[in-house]
Structure formats: structure tokens, C-alpha cells
């Protein structure tokens, strides 16, 4: 695409993109750090995650400010307009992902005796979500709608892992009431990761719209944990 006649306009749009990339990169490492701290029950590492979340929040505020300034100054049209609106929407998705990572870190203290099998499943789930987030950010930087759509289709796996963790934790809690406290927190942790997956899916939809100007159809939800019950023997 040719550059704008006003070159400052190009620089302003590039700045938005670079803020999104930084926010996304931070969120990606926050997920890894939060789940790692949980796995190792490392309180100090968890505190670092909680503090680092502020950086994402600040970047979001900066991005909003810059986006509003561009809207006021340039009256963007067509692809430029979609790009700015996309950046605004994606920044709030990434900010939420950061919040969920922070919430996982906060629960580290409460989960003193997490069941190791569950923690492994949670680790796997986190890896899936991180990979999705990484790929969606790549799709964003490359303006690749197909890649975004591919990420969009992968959220099913995250939903299914959440469902199975939910059932598993319920079973452990029924077997041993001492597991209830940690188990409840682990269910929230899995749910946090599942919600992150949803935000990544949102981002994929936004990128698809930004690039092609067309929305993706509704994705069928595979998260059934809201309806799951475990029968007592």
C-alpha cells in the first residue's frame, strides 16, 4: 500500500501498531510467568506478575490517547479507520488477558497444595493460549486474515481442556474435601485461561475485519462447564 501524502499520519498509525505489539508481547510473557509461578508455587514470582500488569494498563491508556488524537486530527477513512478501531478494541482485549494473568498470580498463594496432574493440565492449557496469542499477534503485524482465522478456529481445544479440568477437579474435591479450597481456585485458574482464549478469538475476529472489512460468523462455543454436573456415586 502506498504511504500517506502526510507522512506523520503513517508514523502515528505505526505507533499504534507498535503499542499493540508491546502489549501483546507483555501479555504473552505474563501468562507464562503466572502459570509458572503457580506450578512452582513461587510467591515472589507471582508478585512480579502482579506488578508487571500495570505496564499493560499504562500502554492501553497511551494507545487510547493516541488513537483518539488520530481520529480527531485525521478523520480517517476506510482501511485506516478500521486499523484504528481495531487497535482500540484489541488493546482492551489484551488488557483483559493481562488482568486474568494477574488473577492467576494472585491465586498462587491460596493454592498451596495443588494436585500435580491438574497443574500439568493447566500448564498445557496455558501453552495453548500463549501460542494462540503469539499467532494472533503475528497475524496482526502481517495483516494476515487467514492466519487470524486459523487462530480463531483453535479456541475449541482450549474450551475442551477447560471442560475436562473442571470435571477432574470436581471429582478430586468429591473424593477429598481437603481439596476443595485449592480445587476451587484451580477451577478459576482454568476459567481464566479459557476466557483468555475467548479474548484471543475476539482479536482474531477484529484482525479479520481490519484486513478484509468483513466480519467472521459467530463461532460455536465449546465451553460447556456452565452446564457440567458430577453425579455422586
Amino acid at each position, binding site marked *: 500500500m502506498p504511504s500517506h501524502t502526510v507522512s506523520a499520519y503513517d508514523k502515528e498509525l505505526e505507533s499504534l501498531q507498535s503499542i499493540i505489539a508491546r502489549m501483546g508481547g507483555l501479555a504473552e510473557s505474563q501468562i507464562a510467568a503466572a502459570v509458572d509461578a503457580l506450578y512452582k508455587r513461587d510467591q515472589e514470582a507471582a508478585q512480579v506478575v502482579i506488578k508487571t500488569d500495570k505496564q499493560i494498563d499504562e500502554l492501553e491508556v497511551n494507545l487510547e490517547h493516541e488513537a483518539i488524537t488520530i481520529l480527531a486530527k485525521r478523520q480517517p477513512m*476506510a482501511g485506516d479507520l478500521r486499523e484504528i478501531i481495531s487497535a482500540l478494541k484489541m488493546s482492551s482485549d489484551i488488557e483483559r488477558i493481562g488482568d486474568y494473568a494477574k488473577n492467576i498470580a494472585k491465586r498462587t498463594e491460596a493454592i498451596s497444595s495443588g494436585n500435580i496432574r491438574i497443574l500439568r493440565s493447566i500448564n498445557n492449557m496455558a501453552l495453548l493460549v500463549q501460542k494462540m496469542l503469539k499467532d494472533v499477534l503475528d497475524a496482526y503485524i502481517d495483516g494476515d486474515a487467514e492466519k487470524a482465522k486459523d487462530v480463531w478456529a483453535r479456541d475449541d481445544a482450549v474450551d475442551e481442556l477447560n471442560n475436562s479440568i473442571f470435571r477432574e477437579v470436581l471429582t478430586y474435591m468429591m473424593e477429598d474435601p481437603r481439596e476443595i479450597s485449592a480445587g476451587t481456585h484451580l477451577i478459576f485458574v482454568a476459567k481464566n485461561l479459557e476466557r483468555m482464549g475467548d479474548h484471543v478469538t475476539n482479536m482474531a475476529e477484529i484482525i479479520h475485519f481490519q484486513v478484509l472489512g468483513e466480519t467472521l460468523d459467530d463461532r460455536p462455543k465449546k465451553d460447556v462447564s456452565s452446564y457440567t454436573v458430577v453425579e455422586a456415586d
Partner: protein
Amino acid sequence: MSEAAFASKEEVSVSETTSENTVEQPQHSVIGEGKFSARDVHVFYGDNEAIKGVDLEVESHKVTALIGPSGCGKSTFLRCLNRMNDTIDGCRVTGDILLDGDNIYDPKVDVVQLRARVGMVFQKPNPFPKSIFENVVYGPKIHGLATRQDELEHVAEVSLKRAGLWDEVSDRLDTPGTSLSGGQQQRLCIARAIAVSPEVILMDEPCSALDPIATARIEELIDELREKFSIVIVTHSMQQAARVSQKTAFFHLGELVEKGETEQIFTNPREDRTRDYITGRFG
């Protein structure tokens, strides 16, 4: 093209007194119907081809915006629609331009009548050096649409009201049109254009000489006028085209590059050239 056209709605009591002068009811087409239909229109200035085979429908009761960089042919095309190009030496138009199905370039067409049906508002407000009243009733007088003083007063009032100027000038109709502010003068020119009950109003950058407030008033007016008339507007302001029109056509180097719903053109244009122009990327 008659007094009755003005009286058709709100002015019932006055129309009763003037109905004997009714000539004929103008054939306004219903909403959604095509008004103008241009087919393979070429315009030459001597050997220079300014418009290169344009096909475009102008829909009734819609605002169609023609956009494009300077020299793209949008104003030339606009001027074809009421044969304003006839006055330019060496200008030749080929192809068909149909108004309600009739070719306006047919030799039998009375150009004066055509311009009464297809009015025009220009970039710079150009009131006649006459009073506000005389400016508005000039057209109806020469076209014989109104002759008696009460008829003329009625036409002036209805036209000025429709142009959103009545409240500002009703107590000084005998002052010169040129004494008004730029924005008021432009609304006076719109009142003058609609005084002859045209079916289409052509506007060639009607706001480019006006300040933002006067521009906003004209834009508001355009939206109201759409109920009665079909409007074709040439504008350099993309934001204005996006605000006031329902249909947009993008011209470049004499070609019609893309036409479509305004919303689609400005949010998701299909052609690269359109995208580059409306996003400010033109080389």
C-alpha cells in the same frame, strides 16, 4: 412546474387562491426510481478526452456525491447533466444521458426547460445584483410559473423557507442579495434554484467558500431537500461526501473508478485507487 407544486403540502390555503393559474403538475418520480441514467458518456474538449465512458445511475430522492482529485472529470460530468457544457467552445459530449428515460442531448430538447428541471448551485454564491426577493422570483418569472404579485410572494416565501433562510430575511426582502453573509448567499442561491420546482439539483462544491457553521447549515439543508429533489453534489471534502450522500462515485483521470453505497465506499472500498484517494495516499 407550477404554483401547485409549491402548494402541494403545507400551503393549502394559498394554493386555493392561485389554483386557476396552475400550468401542470411536475412529474416527480417516486422514491427509489432512477432519475438520471448516463450510459457510455464521453466528453471531449477539442482533442482532449475529459470523460472516458462513464455509466452512472442517479437515484431519485438520494444524494449522489461525485468525488475525485482535481481534474478527474467530476465537475465536467456534473455539468453534462444540465448541458452546462454546451456553452463551452469545442466541448463535445457523446453517449446517452437519460432524464426519466428521455435523452437530454436529443436535438428536440429545450435546454432552458431542461435547466428548469435540473437546477444548479455553484461553488461561489452568485446572487444577482438584485434584492433578495427578486433573486428568488427571477426564475419563476422568466419561466412564467408565477406572474401576480401574491403568487410571486408565495413562491419567494416557500422557497426561502425550504432553503432555511426565511426567518433570517423575511423582514428585509428588498435589501440586496449581495448584502447577506456568504452562507446566507449560498442558501439564497439554493432558494433561487428550488424556486422553479426543479426535479434535480446539481451542486458544484457548494460549501468550499463557506465557514464550518455555514457548511453545517447547508449540509443539514441538503438532507432536508432530498425529500423533494434528487441531488448530485461534487465535493472535495471526503467527510462531507460521507456525511451528506447515500451514493458515492469516485472519478479519476476521466474514468468512473468505483460507485456504490456511500457507507461501503468510505469504510471498505473495493478498488485500490479509491482506497488510496479517500485515505490520503494519492501520489
